[in-house]
């Protein structure tokens, strides 16, 4: 394990259409390791599509923008039709970071016509209401108070955009309702698409309700994927 890496990057092949790709941004290496692991464990427990997830972890907002192709040097990227080869389905970022805060990163993403659709979740160790409100108003999907737990990551499933959903031309009504300040139960219901095709069935597999310790059963097509651990245990 390269503990000094400021960017850790899973190999993602563009053909992996069912693979969820998450961009994690945090200046703390400890937190990057933890969030990466939380995401991967959640994926193999069936919380995300087919158990396949790729996580790119970067140490700053600036690097995140570079990764997306939104940084200063690539200002032309939007006008010249540049399309990043790796679709990002979710951005999860720390709030307190030097140089560029998570809030500033959020704003830059929401200002971009190419990336504003990507759900952004903010993490912070401080439970400051005005801060939370400001982030949600700026378009963040959710605000997680650190330390981040498995139960927090389970919530993220509902915010994921997928290739299939995107193909439906941003039709919000077809599935994931991006609605700020949504409560946990609400979100579990709106992400329940029982009539959807199997490839996005993890969105439909969430049980309505309750116990945070129950993991949803994953799609029937899942086991074709060469994932090392397929622990479909129902315990946390």
């Amino acid at each position, binding site marked *: 394990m390269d*503990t000094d890496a400021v960017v850790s990057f899973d190999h993602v092949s563009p053909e992996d259409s069912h693979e969820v790709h998450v961009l994690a941004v945090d200046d*703390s*290496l400890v937190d990057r*390791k*933890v969030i990466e*692991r939380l995401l991967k464990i959640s994926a193999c427990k069936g919380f995300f599509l087919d158990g396949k997830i790729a996580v790119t972890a970067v140490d700053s907002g600036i690097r995140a923008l570079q990764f997306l192709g939104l940084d200063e040097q690539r200002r032309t990227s939007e006008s010249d039709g540049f399309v990043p080869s790796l679709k990002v389905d979710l951005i999860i970022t720390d709030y307190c970071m*030097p140089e560029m805060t998570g809030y500033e990163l959020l704003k830059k993403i929401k200002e971009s016509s190419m990336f504003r659709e990507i759900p952004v979740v903010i993490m912070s160790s401080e439970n400051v209401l005005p801060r939370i409100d400001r982030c949600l108003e700026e378009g963040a999907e959710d605000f997680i108070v650190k*330390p981040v*737990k*498995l139960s927090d990551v389970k919530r993220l499933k509902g915010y994921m955009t997928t290739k299939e959903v995107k193909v439906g031309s941003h039709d919000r009504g077809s599935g994931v309702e991006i609605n700020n300040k949504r409560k946990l139960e609400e979100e579990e219901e709106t992400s329940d698409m029982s009539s959807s095709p199997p490839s996005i069935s993890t969105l439909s597999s969430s049980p309505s309700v309750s116990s945070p310790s129950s993991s949803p059963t994953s799609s029937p097509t899942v086991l074709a994927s060469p994932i090392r651990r397929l622990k479909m245990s129902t315990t946390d």
Partner: protein
Amino acid sequence: MLGLGADLLWADMNRLLAFLFHQGVLDEQFLQLQQLQDETSPNFVSEVVNIYFHESEKLLTNLRASLMEREFSDYKKMGNHLNQFMGSSSSIGAKRVRNVCVAFRAAAEQNNRAGCLRALEMLEHEYCYLKNKLHELFQIEQQRALAAGVRYPVQD
């Protein structure tokens, strides 16, 4: 196939953990980390904790160096270091260390140098204690794994 030795060590490990929880040295976030460890990532907890130790020692060195400066005045920078330390401590469940950081930060916000020095000493003490205890925990865990006949993956 756990031998008697492994069972005893398992009990030791749990006793130490229970003690650390009871003392408030660790909180449930540490348990959360343990839940993230499995056969695909069998050393996850010790890996993260070692990163934490490495980062913390740098932070502590910076904090002490700053406070020892004759013309020290950069409380804001110290506050930033403390925020980092607080954050990573809370991420691994190091409750007491985190709490001392909170007190330290309060002293820094008041530009209270003497208060900061006292807090720094307390912080160094708590950190040392935590490090020793966690090393002890990892040692017991390793011994238990050996006794149980588990083979660790070769690290390269």
